[in-house]
């Protein structure tokens, strides 16, 4: 009896173009012919990163990768590999990409199989507290390669060729930032890893550090070599104790092994890293505020230019990148900048990590190639919306981002496409909302967050967001006035233009994007005093219909005694007493209570 196998067939754009669909049919036919369908499953994956050798397929266990496969090769693969456990050597492509290992363990599960793991390549398969585990998966080899074979300028060239852009939100080309820092002539330069991660609900950076701290360190050390920095800082929020502990251990282990400190790996390059704890203010993730915070001042932004690359920490040139940006570096060096730039879209290369949350079946942390559609993320990886509810909106970019309606589901993950749709890539928050979510309320939630986090330095952000929040609050309370939508738009655009830092410049986005994509919901709230999602309590009423069987359950549930009625007869809600908590609605087993 043959063993169980999973065939992962690349369903990425290049492979489809090279007729991978024919392979799928051929595999199915062959499996049926050998009556193997029950023992072998087929898993369609996103781009496997070997497009040049496409169409590509992998056979699990062992993750044997076959390249340039044609339909004519399939009978041989099935009869030799599957039936006799003899891989077909002539088709094997021996590409020891760093991320392949992850799929050897997880590749057969749909949720994982559709992803591509560069940043999270080791998360979930190695012991993050053991440097030996990292070394065994070619850890610190990229650093050694750089120190042995490359000049600092070569490293920068590679990062530029890779097309990597900053993953902290703004998407600035990483190679250009490095070049700018490298060009500065000073005695001292600094380097910072931004692990502040202030977006509510985001945990991409925490997970990366907790799962594979050394990859972040290795990226930083390579960056320091490239730009000539002598000292690095990791700015991380104090609420991440486990991540901090693992970083501390990783730094100590890396020092002991000679990857940090004087004369790294016997070269004449020296560099060390320290951890700095942040108190968790959102604005401290902004680079100039963060720098002030490390210097021991209050975390307040300052106008740019000068950019930190020119004048940063202690007025010295400072290279600052996000955790995820750093984690990409070792892979770019080892797997090659050209390879990296083959993944993704024209202007957005590589992958992006997202924290998938909200009304979605498979919540979690995912990493997908740029260019994947939002639809594919929500339905293929996320498994769709639970409880047969309808999709309503996708929020990306957290408090700086926007809400996209169903019309935008075919938008590709890419900095420019998301911006064109009215949201942003941001740092990776992704919240799915169903029909029960009120868009005005969501906008209010995010604005309340940014309003609270505004540092108060500049007036448009400090006062403007307060006024916007007042308007939004009154709309959700049923006190919206004619012209409020226009007022919000005018104020929002003003705040975007006149604020000093990115916090204020992006704070109106959740409001403006919901007005753009869900304007009628605002109008309902203001003109009809109705919240169709039933989320704004002040605008929601409850009524008992004649489906009522008189079970008395709601009467017992009502906290204010607003419901009257005798057993087995129709019940009634006293609208004067009702506080619109919705408890009766949730309690009734006979769908007899109507929300309006």
């Amino acid at each position, binding site marked *: 009896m043959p063993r*169980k196998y999973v065939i992962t067939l690349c369903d990425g754009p290049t492979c489809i173009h090279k007729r991978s669909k024919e392979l799928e049919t051929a595999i199915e036919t062959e499996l049926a012919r050998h009556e193997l369908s029950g023992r072998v499953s087929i898993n369609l994956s996103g781009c496997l990163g070997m497009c040049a050798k496409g169409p590509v397929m992998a056979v699990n266990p062992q993750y044997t990768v076959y390249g340039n496969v044609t339909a004519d090769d399939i009978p041989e693969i099935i009869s030799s590999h599957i039936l006799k456990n003899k891989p077909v050597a002539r088709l094997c492509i021996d590409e020891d990409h760093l991320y392949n290992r992850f799929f050897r363990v997880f590749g057969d599960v749909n949720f994982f199989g559709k992803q591509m793991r560069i940043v999270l390549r080791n998360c979930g398969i190695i012991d993050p507290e053991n440097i030996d585990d990292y070394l065994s998966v070619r850890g610190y080899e990229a650093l050694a390669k750089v120190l042995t074979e490359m000049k600092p300028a070569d490293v920068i060239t590679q990062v530029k060729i890779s097309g990597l852009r900053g993953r902290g939100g703004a998407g600035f080309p990483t190679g250009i930032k490095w070049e700018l820092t490298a060009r500065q002539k000073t005695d001292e330069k600094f380097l910072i890893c931004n692990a502040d991660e202030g977006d509510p609900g985001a945990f991409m950076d925490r997970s990366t550090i907790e799962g594979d701290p050394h990859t972040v360190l290795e990226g930083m050390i390579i960056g320091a070599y490239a730009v000539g920095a002598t000292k690095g800082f990791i700015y991380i929020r104090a609420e991440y104790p486990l991540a901090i502990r693992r970083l501390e251990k990783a730094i100590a282990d890396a020092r002991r092994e000679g990857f940090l400190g004087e004369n790294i790996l016997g070269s004449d390059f020296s560099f060390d890293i320290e951890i700095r704890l942040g108190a968790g203010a959102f604005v401290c993730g902004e680079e100039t505020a963060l720098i002030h915070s490390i210097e021991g001042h209050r975390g307040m932004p300052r106008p740019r230019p000068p950019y930190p690359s020119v004048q940063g920490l202690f007025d010295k040139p400072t290279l600052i990148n996000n955790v995820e940006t750093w984690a990409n570096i070792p892979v770019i060096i080892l797997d090659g900048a050209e390879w990296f730039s083959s993944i993704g879209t024209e202007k957005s290369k590589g992958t992006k990590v997202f924290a998938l949350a909200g009304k979605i079946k498979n919540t979690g*942390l995912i990493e997908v190639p740029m260019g994947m559609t939002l639809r594919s993320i929500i339905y293929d990886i996320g498994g769709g919306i639970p409880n047969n509810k309808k999709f309503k909106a996708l929020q990306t970019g957290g408090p700086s981002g926007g809400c996209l309606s169903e019309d935008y589901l075919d938008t590709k993950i890419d900095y420019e496409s998301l911006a064109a749709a009215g949201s942003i890539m941001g740092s990776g928050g992704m919240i799915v909302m169903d029909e029960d979510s009120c868009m005005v309320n969501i906008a209010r939630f995010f604005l309340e967050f940014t309003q609270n986090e505004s540092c108060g330095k500049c007036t448009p952000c400090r006062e403007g967001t307060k006024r916007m929040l007042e308007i939004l609050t009154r709309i959700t309370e049923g006190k919206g006035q004619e012209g409020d939508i226009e007022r919000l738009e005018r104020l929002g655009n003003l705040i975007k233009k006149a604020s000093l830092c990115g916090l204020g410049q992006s704070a109106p986005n959740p409001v403006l994007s919901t007005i753009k994509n869900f304007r009628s919901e605002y109008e309902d709230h203001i003109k009809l005093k109705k919240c169709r999602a039933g989320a704004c309590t002040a605008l929601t009423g409850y009524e008992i219909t004649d489906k009522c069987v008189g079970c008395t359950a709601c009467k017992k549930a009502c906290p204010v005694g607003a419901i009257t009625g005798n057993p087995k007869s129709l019940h009634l809600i006293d609208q004067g007493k009702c506080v619109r908590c919705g408890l009766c609605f949730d309690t009734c087993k006979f769908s007899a209570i109507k929300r309006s």
Partner: protein
Amino acid sequence: MTTPLDTIKKKRAEAINRILSKGYLSTKRVYVGMATCEIAAGSKDVMEVFESAIKKEGLTDVYLSQKGCAGRCNLEPTVEVVEEGKIPIKYGKVTREMARQIIDQHLKKGEAIKEWTIK
């Protein structure tokens, strides 16, 4: 002259040897998720069950390791049992009791518990 690349190759060989000497080649390797999210879901308890079973019941052919979060948040705590040549078995929402049963049935008798695996 030894280059950094020579040095790293030597270090990797040493690291792999250290891992092997800890029993990496055991028939079964067990990975328990230990990240903030996993721990919040109760993975420390699960880890404890595996640790004490390996110690007290002399499970010599099992290599136990912690791991970071693979990403399936709503199915945590997760545990993988990896055997060479087989598709790794991935368990989700593992409790103390389930861990106990995984030890008795999967680790000791080699029977994976299908109902608990992540599809």
